[in-house]
């Protein structure tokens, strides 16, 4: 029991979960919609669920416990293979379907219900897929620590610069001409159909690339 508790408490040490929680809080206090905050909190919750799943599996293996039922059985079920979706996104049918979906979805303005629904549903499915499938089995060598620090530092500076612009706005929900955030700068571009096609296309392409790499 003590071992299980210690493993469950280890959940709190996962930096990725904390990054998602902090980002979710910033999103909500900056006037973001509930959906935007929810996807970040859901990610953090799934990471914690995954740690709990790992702890439960280890306890079952170590103690040879009886077969669990209900939620525990779902939690400890072996992860699915990522290969079917990886193969699917490579197919011409998915590429053509994706392009058609982008062209149709871009007919709707940003921050409207249809686009929120499209990006929200696709995002939730992708995060759920990442949780349900096992990571790729081929070993990935850790990049040099110096390189990790350099990339991490660059992303951190970008985040802080964006946060500075956000805090210098008249209020959290109102953009500032003098201190523009990236989304404030992109809004005029995304107000046009071509801009939305480009934005949605890039987002979809990035998602496809992530699935192929995962």
């Amino acid at each position, binding site marked *: 029991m003590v071992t299980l508790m210690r493993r469950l408490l280890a959940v709190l040490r996962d930096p990725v979960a904390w990054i998602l929680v902090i980002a979710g809080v910033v999103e909500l206090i900056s006037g973001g919609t509930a959906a935007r905050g929810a996807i970040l909190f859901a990610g953090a919750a799934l990471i914690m669920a995954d740690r709990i799943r790992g702890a439960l599996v280890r306890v079952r293996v170590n103690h040879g416990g009886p077969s669990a039922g209900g939620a525990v059985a779902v939690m400890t079920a072996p992860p699915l293979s990522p290969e079917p979706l990886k193969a699917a996104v490579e197919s011409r049918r998915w590429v053509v379907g994706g392009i058609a979906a982008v062209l149709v979805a871009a007919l709707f303005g940003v921050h409207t219900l249809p686009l929120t629904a499209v*990006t929200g549903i696709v*995002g939730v499915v992708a995060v759920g897929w990442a949780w349900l499938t096992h990571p*790729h089995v081929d070993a990935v060598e850790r990049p040099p620590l110096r390189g*990790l620090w350099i990339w991490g530092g660059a992303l951190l500076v*970008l985040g802080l610069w964006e946060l500075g612009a956000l805090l210098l706005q008249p209020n959290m929900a109102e953009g500032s001409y003098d*201190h523009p955030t990236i989304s404030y700068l992109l809004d005029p571009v995304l107000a046009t159909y071509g801009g939305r096609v480009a934005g*949605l296309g890039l*987002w979809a392409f990035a998602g496809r690339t992530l699935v192929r*790499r995962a």
Partner: protein
Amino acid sequence: MSSRLITLLGYGVLACGGVTLGVAAHRGTSTIPTFDTLVRWALRTRSGRIGVFAAWAWMGLHFLG
């Protein structure tokens, strides 16, 4: 120099820095990993996968949704 120009210059410098890092990473002898290598490395664990996909989903919702 106006506040707007300073803010935009900051984004410009960061964008140039990102491009420079990317170019440096593609040199064979560099200790800086490419962004692709970084993403692959992050995706090797389940918490990394969930974090990367949640960040990607958030970007879609933040800028478009």
